[in-house]
């Protein structure tokens, strides 16, 4: 078996002690991504924009790992206000996932790493 390989985005801000994504054999594990721009670290207030940015970050990592979003197996979505923002999140979700959809769990949490962040998403995908 090959050793796991770390995936990071060129120029991205990543100072925390974990890999943004890890590839092992045919599996790709993407760490929780929030709605911050990967280079500037800036984020929008609104849930649709944060969801779009988080999923864009994930898409880039999955592609850097050599696969595509349609190979996603499962995801976890953490939201600070699921009961009010679930529909808006799902609308953006459909921009990224169509047809054969991944398994998913979504939970409401009390806070994320920075005030103002509303969503964090992680996933497992596979590659051919």
């Amino acid at each position, binding site marked *: 078996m090959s050793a796991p390989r770390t995936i990071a985005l060129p120029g991205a801000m990543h100072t925390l002690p974990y890999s943004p994504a890890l590839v092992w054999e045919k599996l790709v594990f993407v760490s929780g991504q929030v709605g911050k721009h990967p280079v500037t670290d800036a984020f929008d207030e609104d849930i649709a924009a944060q969801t779009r940015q988080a999923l864009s970050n994930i898409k880039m990592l999955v592609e850097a790992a050599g696969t595509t979003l349609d190979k996603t197996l*499962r995801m976890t979505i953490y939201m600070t206000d699921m009961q009010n923002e679930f529909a808006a999140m799902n609308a953006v*979700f459909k921009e990224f*996932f169509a047809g054969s959809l991944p*398994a*998913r769990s979504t939970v409401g949490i009390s806070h994320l790493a920075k005030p103002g962040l509303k969503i964090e998403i992680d996933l497992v995908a*596979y590659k051919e």
Partner: protein
Amino acid sequence: MSRQIIVPPTGLLPHRPYSPAVRVGNTLYVSGHTGSDPVTREIRPDIESQTRQAFRNLQDVIEAAGGTMKDVVKVNIFMTDMGSHFEGMNKVFREVFPQDPPARSTVGVAHLARQGLLLEIEVVAVLAEGGAQ
């Protein structure tokens, strides 16, 4: 390897854009299920009923993939009030996994999708070699 979508015998799909479970190889990733009735969406008020219903919902999906509850290797449980409901959940958990229980993490969450939901459970199962695919 191919990616196979698993749907329970009711044929019911989630009301949101995800699949009940995805199988790749012998690994089955099952989405978070709550104690909501899959047909009526009714939520019972007590933790034991919700836990039992959530596991029934999970079991339907696992069996649709050709597996059994014995194939479950990891469980994540998200609860809105662990302090009050942990014991009630564990009572049902022991009924579901009487021997060699799976690995498990449980965390308290701020809320779930709907008012009244007390827990959400997701699992990973590794199906026996030669299981239906």
